[in-house]
């Protein structure tokens, strides 16, 4: 009999330790990632109870959220940031956890570092106190964000109490038109299914559009699953997954790699796998997509105007009006041509080397508009080095971008990189929430890195296809 389980259920069952009195599954966590923001209180919880870390080799730490991207000298000017940095250094030392710290040439955004080191692998369960942990699902694993109490649970027991979600397969058929990126695909999906459409579901992304994507594009898609309400999203492992992992430092080596490959590929959902729900989109219909509101589902194709308020379901109209008022936009208005103040390329969504290549392709030989403050923040030290070696950093600098060092930066503005006042930012990040980029009244327009590059050059929201 063929195995009709989808990948999610195969991996879930392999990691089930037992059933808890509440009825939840106790799920073994194969890989835990931590960073400086959501871990200090968890270590305190362990200290309060006199507990140790059960599997210290299954947790890997790095620093990303508060790291300054220009002057990284210690102590940081921000005393609170310095205190957090000192705390994670002490916690990792005391509890025996490997820390890719500020001086480590592997440091970077936790969701960039995990994959590039080969820590993220098919078939594992992976959690981190960060909602964008869904990124790692690109490798065909169960990857989800957790809160700090759960970080403590994983540290102490390497398990979590979880309820099994349903699984929705999202197929994108056909192919993408030129100038349309992975970011546009996921913004399109969230727009169609809504920001709460995924609550209670894991998303499996399937079909030719995802098959054709490289691993970094797949990470962009899975990264934003949480913006659609799905705690995790994944793509079945294939030869691209295997090829990406080969030779990476934390990936299996030699004969073990060959054995691993067989197991990884065997986990993929088969042709007759069962799902709780299925949705299909046509890749040919997707345009470069931009947001106009205050959640990632409030988006349009670049050639479309902002839809009339009346066209939304009645229960959403108040939220749409609130968004338009905050953004100072009108229904029926195009986003195309809207003047921007800041351009930000980076984040766990779009701060990888292929993202920087796409953006540099647009920027090469052009200049950032004189009124725009533009910055590129590589997702990791490794991405930073690669971009410098390939000459991308120089292309950005020549054009007038600030070339920074690795961190989360202006995606959530916990470090010194922030919007000021009512500034509008064209951003390759993942959230356009009110105040997200560091100014309580600052405004964010989400788009792909190539679209941010185009906006930086034009000084306005532009259609990147006209610059390619």
């Amino acid at each position, binding site marked *: 009999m063929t195995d009709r389980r989808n990948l999610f259920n195969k991996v879930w069952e392999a990691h089930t*330790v037992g059933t808890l009195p509440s*009825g939840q599954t106790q799920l073994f966590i194969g890989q835990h990632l931590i960073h400086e923001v959501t871990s200090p209180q968890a270590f305190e919880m362990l200290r309060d109870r006199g507990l140790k870390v059960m599997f210290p080799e299954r947790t890997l730490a790095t620093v990303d959220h508060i790291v300054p991207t220009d002057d990284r000298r210690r102590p940081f000017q921000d005393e609170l940031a310095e205190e957090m940095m000192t705390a994670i250094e002490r916690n990792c030392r005391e509890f025996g956890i490997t820390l890719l710290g500020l001086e480590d040439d592997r440091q970077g955004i936790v969701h960039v570092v995990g994959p590039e080191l080969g820590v993220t692998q098919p078939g594992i369960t992976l959690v981190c106190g960060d909602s964008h942990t869904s990124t790692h699902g690109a490798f065909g694993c169960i990857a989800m964000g957790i*809160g700090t109490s759960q970080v403590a649970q994983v540290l102490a027991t390497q*398990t979590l109490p979880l309820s099994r979600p349903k699984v929705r397969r999202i197929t994108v058929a056909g192919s993408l038109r030129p100038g349309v990126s992975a970011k546009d695909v996921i913004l399109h999906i969230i727009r169609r299914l809504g*920001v709460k459409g995924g609550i209670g579901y894991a998303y499996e992304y399937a079909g030719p559009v995802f098959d054709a994507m490289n691993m970094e594009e797949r990470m962009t898609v899975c990264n934003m699953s949480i913006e659609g309400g799905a705690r995790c999203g994944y793509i079945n492992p294939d030869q691209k997954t295997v090829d990406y992992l080969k030779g990476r430092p934390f990936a299996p080596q030699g004969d073990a790699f060959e054995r691993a490959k067989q197991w990884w590929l065997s986990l993929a959902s088969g042709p007759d796998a069962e799902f709780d729900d299925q949705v299909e989109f046509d890749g040919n219909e997707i345009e470069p997509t931009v947001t106009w509101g205050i959640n990632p589902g409030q988006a349009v194709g670049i050639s479309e105007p902002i839809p009339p308020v009346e066209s939304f379901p009645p229960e959403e109209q108040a939220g749409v009006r609130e968004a338009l008022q905050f953004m100072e936009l009108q229904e029926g208005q195009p986003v195309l041509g809207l003047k921007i103040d800041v351009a930000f390329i980076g984040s766990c969504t779009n701060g990888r080397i292929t993202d920087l290549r796409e953006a540099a392709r647009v920027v090469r030989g052009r200049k950032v508009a004189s009124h725009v403050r533009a910055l590129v923040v590589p997702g990791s030290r490794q991405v930073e080095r690669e971009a410098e070696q390939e000459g991308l950093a120089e292309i950005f600098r020549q054009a007038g971008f600030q070339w920074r060092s690795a961190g989360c930066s202006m995606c959530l503005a916990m470090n010194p990189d922030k919007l000021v006042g009512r500034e509008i930012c064209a951003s390759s990040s993942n959230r356009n*929430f009110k105040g997200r980029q560091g100014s*309580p009244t600052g405004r964010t327009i989400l788009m792909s890195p190539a679209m941010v590059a185009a906006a930086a050059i034009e000084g306005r929201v532009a259609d990147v296809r006209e610059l390619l």
Partner: protein
Amino acid sequence: MQEISQVTGTGVPMLIDDVDTDRIIPARYLRCVTFDGLGQHVFEDDRLQDPNHPFDDPRFQGGSILVTGRNFGCGSSREHAPQALMRWGIRAIVAESFAEIFFGNCTSLGIPAVTAARTDLQRLADVIAAKPATEITVDLSAKQVCFADQTIACEIPEEARSALLTGQWDFLAQLLKTEEAIRQTAARLPYLNDFVGC
């Protein structure tokens, strides 16, 4: 841990949708190594921009039951968000729906997060606005919210309900009891065993 079957108090009406955790506690307040002191900063940026924000409204001070809309707590996984609400004084949340990570964080803190129909939430919010001193009870045993002379139905996933009712929402203590089973699971996972025999 404490068995939580009922939470009684006055209400704070905030019947809006898609409230994200960046709004509940802005990221700059995540620069901390404890959760102490977060309560005063809850909804800080919203409150600065809205002089009539319910968390500043004198009528709702001392309120412990938050009434809100769809997809409450979406976005960032930061436990700082329910911690900030709890430290402000919120003991239970009644909403149309919750984002999942936020819901899990609430349960870990012993904060019942229950859902109710929009029309019922509107009635509840209206009653609070008209008479802020109204006593409200979120009753997990009966899956009801009672206020004035009205009763509305509420829902909460059975696992969370059971954990709160039986005082077993300190999941860490339960997980710690199963070390042998945890090690057995680790021993059969291919990737923890050099992919031998998979």
